[in-house]
């Protein structure tokens, strides 16, 4: 399948990626990723530094800001190979979110100060959008900033802040004008995690990890030069961001990686030839093929100049459904071998992380706009309902 979709010139590109990964990825990191185990800060940063040295760390960035100058097709290929070869999935808050926003809306000074440090890993960014009681409904957020001399004083609580424990910067949406309607009067601010008044509480998830956090802001001072673009326009910037780089949203590499792991798992459990398991693996393989060919079809249309809109939501919906179906099939394959707690020392590879991944990946249909919201977006923006 993959080969079907790749031109000879792309095949050479694919080989280059593979060679690089083979020589640069630490075996222990690869093992953790291949089992779906949690990663530490250094696991990410070591890999990031290798990519940075090669000039590959920010595939979608223009060359002027330090990107590799890849085409959309090459980005998809790289994305797939990185997943398939079990490289750490670098969190996108710097590369895919605040970086592109600063390129488009930031001042030259902000760009010069922050962009290089995103690439090098000196800065780790986290995202302060969600609040308790305002998950997918961002417009109802309640964190407030009031004008003070030379800047703003911010009060409020942010939640679901992924990897805030590793971050030294956070970009936040805050309400700067309480008088206007919900989506207006919101600004985007860049906040140093070391600011006085900023504290963090880890949120323990049911899978045992502490990936996400609550961030409390009490009279946190934000100088004027750390407001992005214009005051009260933050919602516009956030929306532009959400439309960025949507073609990779189907997570084809992630799905293929897990499908391959399930094959190994079926063999290890002695059920490699079980017709029911084989049938489900094939069905999910076909589902992946449908998302992959849809991605390539939309990519081709985009290369011909068609402006892609909300139809890419379908890639998010189907991609995450496939990934969750895979974690559920893993449960079926592992059966009672999945029972020991991940930290009990009694679990056996490749089954030890099956429950962890099933629980952890429930998030896929919740975050980034829940799948229900994606369906509503499709209905409204594409179907005109």
């Amino acid at each position, binding site marked *: *399948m*993959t*080969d*079907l*979709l*790749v*031109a*000879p010139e792309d095949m050479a590109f694919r080989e280059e990626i*593979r060679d690089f990964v*083979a020589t640069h990825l630490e075996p222990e990191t690869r093992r953790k990723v*291949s089992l779906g185990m949690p990663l530490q800060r250094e696991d990410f940063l070591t890999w990031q530094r290798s990519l940075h040295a090669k000039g590959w760390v920010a595939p979608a960035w223009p060359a002027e800001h330090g990107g590799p100058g890849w085409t959309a097709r090459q980005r998809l290929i790289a994305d797939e190979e990185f997943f*398939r*070869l*079990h490289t750490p999935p670098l969190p996108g808050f710097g590369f895919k979110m605040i970086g592109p926003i600063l390129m488009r809306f930031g001042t030259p000074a902000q760009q010069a100060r922050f962009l290089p440090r995103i690439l090098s890993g000196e800065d780790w960014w986290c995202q302060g959008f969600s609040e308790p009681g305002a998950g997918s409904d961002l417009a109802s957020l309640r964190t407030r900033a009031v004008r003070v001399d030379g800047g703003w004083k911010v009060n409020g609580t942010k939640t679901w802040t992924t990897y805030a424990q590793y971050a030294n910067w956070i970009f936040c949406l805050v309400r700067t004008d309480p008088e206007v309607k919900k989506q207006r009067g919101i600004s985007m601010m860049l906040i140093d995690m070391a600011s006085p008044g900023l504290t963090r509480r880890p949120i323990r998830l049911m899978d045992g990890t502490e990936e996400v956090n609550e961030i409390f802001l009490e009279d946190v001072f934000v100088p004027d030069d750390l407001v992005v673009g214009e005051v009260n326009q933050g919602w516009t910037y956030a929306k532009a961001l959400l439309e960025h780089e949507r073609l990779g949203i189907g997570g084809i590499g992630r799905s*293929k*990686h897990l*499908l*391959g792991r399930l*094959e*190994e798992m079926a063999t290890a459990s002695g059920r490699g030839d079980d017709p029911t398991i*084989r*049938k489900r693996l*094939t*069905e999910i*393989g*076909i589902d*992946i*093929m*449908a*998302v992959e*060919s*849809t991605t*390539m*079809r939309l*990519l*081709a*249309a985009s290369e*011909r100049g068609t402006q892609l809109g909300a*139809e890419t939501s*379908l890639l998010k*919906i*189907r991609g995450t459904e496939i990934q969750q179906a895979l974690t559920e099939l893993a449960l079926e394959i592992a059966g009672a071998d999945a029972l020991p707690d991940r930290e009990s020392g009694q679990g056996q590879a490749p089954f030890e992380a099956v429950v962890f991944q099933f629980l952890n990946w429930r998030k896929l249909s919740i975050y980034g706009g829940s799948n*229900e919201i*994606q*369906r*509503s977006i*499709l*209905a*409204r923006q*594409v*179907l*005109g*309902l």
Partner: protein
Amino acid sequence: MIRFDAPSEEALLLKDTAMRFIADNYGLEKRAAMLAKPADAVPAHWTEMAELGWLAAPLPEACGGLGLSPTDVLPLLEVLGAGLILEPVSPAILGCAATIAAALPAETAADLLEAMLAGERIEVLATGGASATAPAVTATWTSGSWTLSGKAPMVVGGAAADIVWAVARVDDALGLFRVPADAVALTGFRLFDGQTAATVDFDGVSCTEDQLFPMDDTALVRGTEMALLARLAEALGLIEALYRTTLDYVKLREQFGRPIGAFQSVQHRMADMFIHCEEVRSMVQLAAEAMDGAPADLRRQVHAATWVKLVDNGRAVLRDAVQLHGGMGMTDELIVGHMVKRLLMLIQSGGSREDWLSAAAPSLHNSREAEALHA
């Protein structure tokens, strides 16, 4: 290499012509009048379809065709499927003529196909056995002529055929017999969607040496795959038409004081219907591009995977199209019911989903490759 290129100008032109033709000639009333005729009546618009170039479109230029690529034939076939035509374009052209074009030298094929491409004849292919390479018909050589035996119980489009081409076992090889319809026992009947078919009984039919043409596996595979692609394209056209018709309906139809499309559960189901369409479109395009761009085994896998998607998504779309139309979706009075039957017919014609699933199975996801790298 699959590129998902846009259809050619020529393909889009054919498509536009077809849409106008359908609008003019295939309203439900006109179609009902056609359905009231016996199954073996000559179909209404065969000659016009030839004049419009539809019959020649998918065949190589050397055989008298227009030489459109499989990808470029899709738009036309989608319109003909959604248009619920009763003429046997897919079985006669994509099934029969494409097989002849693949099996015979171009000049011979051109001669033999000329009358059909001119709209003067209908010719169909009887394969009929348990598998393509185990045909239902057998030929034996006795005292200077071939005698055929065997029966093809389901020759789609064959009710009004002038010529039936029989794929036959000739000793240990395959052969293609060109048999006039009046030489066989042919019983025409309708399928549940209104299209016609025939049972063809070859028992005791005698053929001369010059009715036998050589045939090999490759030609048979090509013809089979073109016929499959035709059904996939028709089904895609129907799925999209059902989606659009249903979308229009939920915007108009009011219940409890507002359009039913304003209800969230309807919106989410329509979003799923949209996704089902888009997936089938991607897969059918992939299947078409694979025809000239992929090795045989990969092509077979992609085709099987596409068929499975068609079965799953097609069934979901037709279920929801009826359900969202409510009682109106059950009637013969809206187009939706007719489209549902045609789509269902296409799905059923493929036989067991399980067999397609098995054919789609091997290493779709390059896991062995990944393992090799992993090691």
